[in-house]
């Protein structure tokens, strides 16, 4: 079955019911989402928004209460659908009795990679993630960042078409993060779809092409990164502003905040900020700063989850 989407969910819902109290928690509430093939998609949300439950439903570790999820057009509950998926879970616990190479060999075998191919791929992947000397070392000796990189190699070993990564740079140092980003970019260029669940907004902003923000189990906002961060404007900082001027400026600004005798004002257009500057100068008010701004993903995120 061919589908133009790597991931497609329709009305995906998960309700957790406590066994005795008959209490219900709607972890994921009617999510319909499409992730195009070959994109890098970021799933964001505050703690408890339902991100991990959503990812687990994609990988059939959690059964949906309602709705369905498709991976490349196949029902995600079917084992065959997961053949195309490489997964790096958050808080993974790889058994420490494995060596690095042994762990890769085990998970590759479970993914259906033939023995001869595994022997060839394992050293290549250890090299790719910067652990070429560590293949024979038991995982108990690995640092958190090394385990994360080995986990990424594990997700890549069967040449998946979809990579699902839960906090992929968690515990990794800045050099390692750059390395992981470079690896993922290389796979994106090869047409692999990358689905990242992360709370590191700056990283998602520099790396992802499309984003969805979950809040209280629902998609609160979604779109391309360019669309979501398109909000431009100007930030004006004034000093010694009398009360009547503050009121005039407030009427034109989109936001206002005060700090240490200074007032920060955000304006949506050049015309509005020019009017504000004229008003301030007419009342002999000092202009401390005037800078053009763009809307960061963090601004968008905070606005979305605080609604």
């Amino acid at each position: 079955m061919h589908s133009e989407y790597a991931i497609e969910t329709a009305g995906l819902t998960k309700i957790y019911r406590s066994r005795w109290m008959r209490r219900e928690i709607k972890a994921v509430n009617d999510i319909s989402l499409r992730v195009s093939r070959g994109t890098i998609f970021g799933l964001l949300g505050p703690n408890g928004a339902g991100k991990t439950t959503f990812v687990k439903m994609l990988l059939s570790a959690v059964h949906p209460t309602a709705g369905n999820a498709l991976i490349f057009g196949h029902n995600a509950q079917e084992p065959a659908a997961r053949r195309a998926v490489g997964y790096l879970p958050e808080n993974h616990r790889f058994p420490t009795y494995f060596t690095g190479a042994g762990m890769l060999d085990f998970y590759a075998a479970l993914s259906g990679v033939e023995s001869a191919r595994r022997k060839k791929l394992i050293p290549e992947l250890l090299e790719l993630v910067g652990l070429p000397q560590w293949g024979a070392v038991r995982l108990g000796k690995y640092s958190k960042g090394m385990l994360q990189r080995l986990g990424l190699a594990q997700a890549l070993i069967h040449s998946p078409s979809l990579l699902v990564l839960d906090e992929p740079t968690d515990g990794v140092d800045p050099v390692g993060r750059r390395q992981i980003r470079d690896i993922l970019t290389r796979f994106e260029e090869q047409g692999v779809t990358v689905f990242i669940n992360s709370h590191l907004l700056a990283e998602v902003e520099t790396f992802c092409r499309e984003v969805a923000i979950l809040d209280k189990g629902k998609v609160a906002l979604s779109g391309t990164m360019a669309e979501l961060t398109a909000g431009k404007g100007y930030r004006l900082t004034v000093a010694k502003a009398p009360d009547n001027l503050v009121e005039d400026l407030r009427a034109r600004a989109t936001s206002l905040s005060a700090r240490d005798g200074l007032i920060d004002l955000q304006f949506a257009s050049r015309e509005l900020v020019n009017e504000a500057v004229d008003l301030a100068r007419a009342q002999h008010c000092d202009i401390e700063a005037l800078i053009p701004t763009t809307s960061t993903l963090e601004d968008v995120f905070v606005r979305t989850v605080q609604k």
Partner: protein
Amino acid sequence: MTTAALILDTFREAFARKIFWGLFGLSTVMILFFLFLLRIDLVEGGMATLSLFGRTAESMTDVDRVVRGVYGGIATFLYTWGMFLAVFASAGLIPSVLEPGRIGLLLSKPISRTHILLGRYAGNVLVVSCNIIYLVLGVWIILGIKTRIWSPTFLISIATTIFIFAVLLSVVVLVGVLFESAALATMVTVALMIISPILAQTAIMLRLLSSEWSRQLWRTLYYSLPKVYDVGRMTLDAIQSHTFSGYMPIWTSAVFAVVMMGAALFVFSRRDF
């Protein structure tokens, strides 16, 4: 390929937790015990006397009886202490695979949940089987060489011991999947082992019980629970007197194991991790 990987993983974990080597060490101690304790005097190529545990057999008939007694003793040892050890050793291997951060990754692979659980179960049975085969074959070969009496019926204990372990392991799997507790799984399984010889006194109990419903309850418990004692008794009879009392304990125990594994697979397939 995936089944082999799951079984190998169970072996790796059994090695790492020293379970395999613990059982292997105990089996070796047992084999060495017979190797050095059993003293045989050979006179002009024939066996004159055999002594073990202070008992001395002088005729060939006596030797045969002593050897069969030894075989019966080992089979009984395997049935009681060996089985306890195997259950204790294996109980942790099922919940460990269900740990958060480990099961999620396993489930993300293109294999069914049934495959994962059965692979783990098979690996666990094989770990214990290797040790049972090593112990029984080792003792059989030592006694055979020393006494020149080769009693193939002793080898039946390999099959019956592995069978009963597989039956009891199905309980470990179900409790492990339900509660993720190795301690609880051990307790329930050991309780079944302890209750088995009591339930086996069915003929006596049915005479002693006064009401029909209590007799019916006793019969239900006896026929539905695994017959650890009965299968052990069957093995002993086969080794010592070459008698066979019927397949009922085998097939009712097998049905019990199938039901337990079926329930475990059902629960495992429906659980969220």
